[in-house]
């Protein structure tokens, strides 16, 4: 089970829910689960979003395994100047 | 645009009479940016630097003659000129970067007729005269009478400044120029202030004060001058100078500064310029400049 923190920019799709518990082995599956619960969120998480698992920010995390009890944050991918 | 390069005053006046839509230039440091910014192109550009008289710098017993197209670097390099007119040299040295100083001239700085021109208040307080040429000969006019408003001068079509006359100062005279710019260099004055004083045993016997960038043209401040003559340069006199200078302003709000700021700082700079000029007149000045240039 992992704790997923929903960024404010996506809460229009989650009815304001900021935190959900999801059981998924990989980030790809986790996004699929989220999309089932909150239709449309998958598309928004498809581009321009990085995933942080337990503090490590992973830009290419689609196939990353999620350890039990993980804290998951979705962050906008920022490039900079 | 045609590029014309006369070698004598007469040739230049002839060219100008034949091509009414011609513009004279010396260093081109104003002309080129103005053309680039969309100012209408003249039919011809007349380069005055080929005329020996406009490029001459000379001194006699009584006066200096400064060619209108002499690049200002030659003025700032002249130890004699700096010794006699430190304020004038300070002012011309502020016109732009070293790159600009290699090209810009007193004639150009005056006739471009910017209210903010750094050299103009300094020329005015030193009583400089412009020798103006036209097809019918030359006339001599005070520098203060050349500029009539932003971008406009009293010069008639076909006239141009040949040279400036500058009388050597009486004993115990000092001048100074200060300006306010947000940057230390490469900037246009928000306020400029020039002062020239003659002292006799600590008492002011003559004073001229002029401000730049606070009115459509550089302006004299007679009330400030009157507040000094016949008195020692003390705090009371300096306060009167500041008040008169602020009062003499007729500024605008623009991208470089506000009316209130210009009024306030004109008083401050006039007061400081008078104080420095007074130190110089009494020979007390230590002379450390912020650009490290020695006296």
């Amino acid at each position, binding site marked *: 089970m992992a704790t997923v923190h929903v960024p404010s920019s996506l809460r229009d799709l989650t009815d304001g829910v900021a935190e959900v518990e999801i059981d998924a082995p990989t980030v790809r599956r986790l996004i699929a689960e989220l999309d089932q619960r909150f239709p449309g969120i998958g598309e928004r998480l498809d581009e321009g979003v990085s995933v942080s698992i337990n503090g490590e920010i992973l830009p290419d995390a689609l196939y990353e395994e999620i350890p039990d009890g993980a804290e998951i944050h979705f962050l906008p991918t920022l*490039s*900079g*100047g | 645009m045609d590029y014309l390069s006369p070698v004598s005053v007469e040739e230049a006046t002839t060219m100008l009479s034949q091509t009414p839509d011609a513009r004279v230039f010396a260093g081109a440091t104003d002309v080129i940016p103005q053309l680039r910014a969309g100012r209408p192109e003249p039919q011809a550009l007349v380069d005055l630097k080929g005329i020996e008289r406009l490029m001459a710098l000379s001194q006699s017993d009584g006066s200096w003659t400064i060619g209108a197209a002499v690049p200002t670097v030659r003025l700032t390099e002249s130890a004699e000129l700096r010794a006699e007119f430190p304020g004038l040299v300070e002012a011309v040295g502020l016109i732009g970067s070293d790159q600009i100083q290699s090209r810009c001239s007193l004639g150009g700085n005056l006739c471009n007729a910017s209210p903010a021109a750094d050299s103009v208040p300094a020329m005015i307080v030193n009583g400089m005269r412009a020798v103006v040429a036209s097809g019918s000969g030359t006339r001599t006019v005070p520098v203060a009478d050349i500029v009539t408003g932003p971008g406009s001068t009293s010069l008639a079509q076909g006239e141009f400044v040949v040279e400036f006359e500058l009388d050597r100062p009486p004993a115990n005279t000092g001048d100074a120029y200060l300006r306010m710019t947000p*940057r230390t260099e490469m*900037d*246009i004055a928000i306020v400029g202030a020039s002062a020239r004083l003659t002292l006799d045993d600590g008492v002011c016997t003559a004073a001229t004060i002029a401000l730049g960038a606070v009115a459509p043209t550089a302006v004299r401040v007679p009330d400030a001058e009157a507040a000094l003559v016949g008195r020692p340069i003390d705090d009371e006199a300096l306060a009167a100078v500041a008040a008169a200078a602020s009062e003499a302003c007729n500024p605008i709000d623009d*991208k470089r500064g506000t009316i209130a700021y210009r009024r306030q700082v004109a008083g401050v700079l006039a007061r400081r310029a008078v104080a420095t000029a007074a130190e110089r007149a009494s020979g007390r000045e230590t002379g450390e400049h912020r*650009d490290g240039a020695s006296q």
Partner: protein
Amino acid sequence: MTVTEETTTSGPGYKWVGTRPIRPDGLDKVTGKARFGADLALPGMLEGAVLRSPHAHARIVSIDTRAAAAMPGVKAIVTGADFPDPAELGGRPDEEMVAANIIARDKVLYEGHVVAAVAATSRKQAQRAAAAIEVEYQPLEHVLTVDEAMADDAPLLHPDLKTRGMDPAPEEPSNIASRISHERGDLDKGFAEADLVVERTFTTKPVHQGYIEPHAAVADAGENGRATIWCSSQGHFAMRTMTATVLGWEPSKLKVIPAEIGGGFGGKTVIYLEPLAVALSAKSGRPVRLVMDRDEVFRASGPTSGTKIRVKVGVTNDGQLTAAEAWMAYEAGAYPGSPVGAGGMTILAPYDIPNFSVEGFDVVVNKPKVAAYRAPGAPMAAFALESVLDELAAGIGMDPVELRLRNAAVEGTQASYGPKFPRIGFVETLEAIRDHDHYRAPLGPNQGRGVASGFWFNAGMNSSATVHVNEDGTMTVVVGTPDIGGSRASMGLMAAEEMGIDVAKIQSIVADTETVGFNDVTGGSRVTLATGAAVVEACRSIKADLRARAAKTWDCDIEEVEWVDGQAQHAGGGETPLSLQALARKSGRTGGPISATASLNARGVGAAFSTQVCDVEVDPETGEVTILRFTTAQDAGTAIHPSYVEGQMQGGVVQGIGWALNEEYIHDRDGRMENPGFLDYRIPVASDLPMIDTVVVEVPNPAHPYGVRGVGEVGIVPPLAAVANAIAAATGCRLVDLPMSPPRVLAAITGKADG
């Protein structure tokens, strides 16, 4: 060469990393040989000019190009009609925005918005023809600030724009493109616990990156539906992608060759001229060069946002921050996309504050579309927060560095934007300033000292690198991230360290889009980290290959071969070591050329922090501010080439000083920029500044092979507040509006005296 900057080295004993060799491209750059964007000329090349909108907001009624087309030497004219309709590109919304920004169709949204472009046999002819294009405009009401744009009855830039991130979603369109928010804890409780609460509203003006080289592009479109572009940019792959999108082409039809780039700071991560040049070239059948004038750079290329930020922070008497609230509105320019998201994520990031709420708005206005500028969004946010912290510290009588130390984020702190921080070096930068002799140096009359800190994420992103071993035992490192500030040198140093050979034997080059794998832009302080990681990975592949070849030569197991000091050594010592040169010479007989490529999407980005101290003197009668002394401490992770690390720190600081004191976009009431040149857009000149002292703090990033964090951006985050805090100390006046130009400073001083 005397090096006077301080470097605190805490890393392991590297041989090459941390040294200061001359950069590989240096010779060309001091002799005038280096070719920048505008320096390329091709046979038969035409010169282009662009017609831009004189209006801040207007409907285009008609465009008549007939007279212009008939002028001598004119070979091609393009207008919006020559490009695919952005709405029909099928791309992401931000791609549509890029396309719409390149050339207007039915509406111009800012002064400088492109309306048409011309190619002719000379630049002057092209300019004359552009001026002869007849455009009929119907001027519309415009908005220039977030206050104007957010007003109820504001004229709309985009009639279909509805605010994203609102719950419930708004039904009516507005100029607010999106809303962001972050919150944690109980705000009311937090403020109730505070002994002192300070709330202030801050404003900043748009400021430009101010790179010295204007945008330039040369395009040569062939008859086979392909085109080659030479341009200076922060990333030629990104230029290719974006240009292809705007043209409706497949990216692979475009080849982009990077010119040397004359500064970018974020402003050259986006396209402006490239699609116009390709379209003109395709239409004329000849190469076309387009170069911006400086005033076009100011009027039409991206500055960063003007902002309005309200901050409220509470603190206890013993220096614990209890709550923080921030409301932030950022101008996006004409199309959505201000860096308010990053502003909201960074504003509280350096501190561990239990209760907070951050709300931000991305607001369109009739000004050029903003582009990234060095730590985009963070400096204005830090200006607001760090100014308030300064006031709080003064209010409770605590040293401002001490206040920051008490609340500083450390490893394990949950960042305000979400995840927990890994090992970071914020505390170390604070301690470096606290312990610096600058911090205790005496001050004179009218002088003041200010400190401020800043945070920036740094980026990872995609990089590819190829490394070749040449037959003479030298190596070539091929990367695809343009070198703006010495990255060829740092790539060479990491390769030298990895391979154990002299850095002089390594040539680093930046290759075009067809010669090396995909690379994201040089931006986000990411190149030394990400491209560096790719170079290191490629070198490690090469070392493995070299060891295998040595093992074959010696008929032993690869495990018995070590790579030490640039040569293969037999673990048992029984064989004469084989140098790189020896192995290279025989490569044809041991398996062919020795070469390796690595491509990656970099992980392990290390966050960057900076703390700075600034001394100023304020002339109380004119408001003139003189920077007397400035010291910056920044966590670099590991300084690969310390000189260029210091250079990034110093450059960021000075840009921040310019932003603080004098830089601003000034618009008249009609929305036209009044200062589109370096005379009145006042970036600092050499005589405005002291030396910028640097303290390179090195808290290695555990996730990078050499501990790199990235150093390019964070240096610009603290100076705005550091200068403001110093002015406050010198004058007793808290300035909340940038720039703190002499008229503003004097007005504050006068107002205080009058008040």
